[in-house]
């Protein structure tokens, strides 16, 4: 492995970590709302969150590219802020990845919140816990398996993305060239040994992640 490979590896891990942290931050309130609301908008919002599951990454990437471009709303906004345009930058990649991996984080957390049911929250209220207190001291700890699944899936899914990176980030060394893109480069250049190193690494990484997911996340304990 040369330094280009290591840089791509480092960039990939950095991207996945930042995206996972952001997704936990953004995904948790969305998951809570989806799990608890009786609003008529629940279906629509749930469907929008789930869109990346079914759309080809290129479609998502295409529209994000337009939105972040000089004529898109997001692009105008970022230019107005004075930070320039996002496509082909690392921050652009982060934003695209957040959209792309959103359902992988929201859905496990939402399921976990739903599995808690109404009762523990009512019990907490009868024990003087305010809704905010209840959320942190009861709902989040009880939904821990969901957070774990969401974080692992979000991280792994971001590591594995390819199409959207090409659409938004291109292939700029040290900036947007992540492992999946680099493997493609290696293969195109007939550098099979390098491609093997990285691809094999991805296979092992994915296996370890899923193993961890299934090992440390046993069936939820029955409520006492």
């Amino acid at each position, binding site marked *: 492995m040369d330094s280009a490979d290591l840089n791509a590896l480092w960039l990939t891990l950095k991207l996945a970590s930042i995206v996972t942290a952001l997704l936990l931050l953004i995904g948790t309130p969305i998951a809570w709302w989806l799990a608890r609301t009786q609003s008529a908008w629940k279906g629509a919002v749930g469907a929008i969150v789930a869109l990346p599951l079914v759309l080809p990454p290129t479609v998502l990437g295409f529209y994000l590219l337009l939105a972040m471009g000089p004529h898109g709303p997001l692009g105008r906004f970022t230019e107005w802020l004075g930070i320039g345009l996002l496509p082909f930058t690392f921050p652009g990649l982060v934003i695209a990845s957040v959209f792309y991996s959103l359902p992988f984080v929201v859905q496990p957390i939402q399921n976990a919140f739903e599995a808690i049911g109404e*009762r*523990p929250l*009512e*019990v*907490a*209220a*009868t*024990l*003087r*816990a*305010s*809704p905010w*207190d*209840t959320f942190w*001291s*009861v709902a989040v*700890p*009880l939904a*821990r398996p969901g957070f774990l699944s969401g974080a692992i899936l979000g991280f792994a899914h971001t590591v594995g993305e390819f199409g959207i990176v090409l659409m938004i980030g291109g292939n700029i060394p040290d900036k947007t060239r992540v492992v999946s893109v680099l493997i493609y480069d290696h293969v195109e250049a007939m550098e099979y040994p390098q491609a093997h190193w990285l691809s094999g690494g991805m296979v092992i990484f994915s296996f370890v992640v899923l193993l961890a997911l299934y090992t440390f996340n046993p069936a939820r*304990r*029955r*409520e*006492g």
Partner: protein
Amino acid sequence: MSSDIRARFRVERQRFTLDIDLALPGAGVTALFGPSGSGKTTCLRAIAGLERAAGGYLAIGENVWQDATRGHFLPTHRRPIGYVFQEASLFSHLSVRANMEFGQKRAAPAVPRFSLPEIAEMLAISGLLDRHPEQLSGGERQRVAIARALLGAPQILLMDEPLAALDLKRKLEILPYLERLRGELSLPIIYVSHAPDEVARLADHLVLLDAGKVVASGSLNSVLARIDLPAVFADDAGVVIATRIAAHEAHQLTRLEFPGGAIFVSRHQQPPGTPIRCRIHARDVSLALHPPQHSSILNSVAAQVVDLAPTATPGHLLIKLDVAGTPLLARITQRSAENLGIRPGLALHAQIKAVALLA
């Protein structure tokens, strides 16, 4: 009395509409009793603020928790209540001790009347504090839930069929603790139940609910002794009298005294002075115009007929009696009633064939 509880709720449900207006005593155990779907649990939830009743009013003593006319509604987490659900509902991510401390911490600066070790001792869960909820039996879990509710320094304890999810053995395991709580806590308890034996053992005040309406509300005995209502406990019309062990006597007998008389029961283990509740079924009481002299029935008390009413059993009447202030019910045949000339005001003798000791 300023510590009384006033509750007025109207809650629309698919199956029924809860529409109640209650004045309850601010002490002792009040049982909300009725068939399932009668609105007992909804009523309890409305008191806790878990159910938002439109147009409701609720005051515990001088504290108004809900008053729709002023748009006032105290959310559940700001009401000083203890709530015991049907299933123990312990937090599965916390140890028994942490479960118990959950409410205690949040009740501060209010301090529970008993410390955690004292309550753990009272409910015999001291040895379980470091365990996790899933390591406990159903009965143990429910005792922890009761302890947890008490440690929140409640001003009122609400219990929603706390024994219904338990089998008979566990039930019998917990009932004595509940009786102890009734004795040791000067805390009003509202107890939802559809089990006659629990109500007979625990309640001081009884509210009968049916299809969301209050059918009767009063002291346990005044409600049980009402003959104008369909028998409260289905076929088992009867009263519950509060007695005290007066003495252990010869022939393996114990004498129980109550205002109005005394009855003999088989030798009881508890020392004299111990209060004991007895349930006397109407079917176990027969009537005689003269003091029975040649009878194997041990217990006979002088009584006066208050009223009579037909029962669900054809050809039988329910007679309400007054034994120097203590009500008693007798079920006799219509024919006997005519033969004896039973009418309100008649003085006679009630023979009690059997007494069920509660506890």
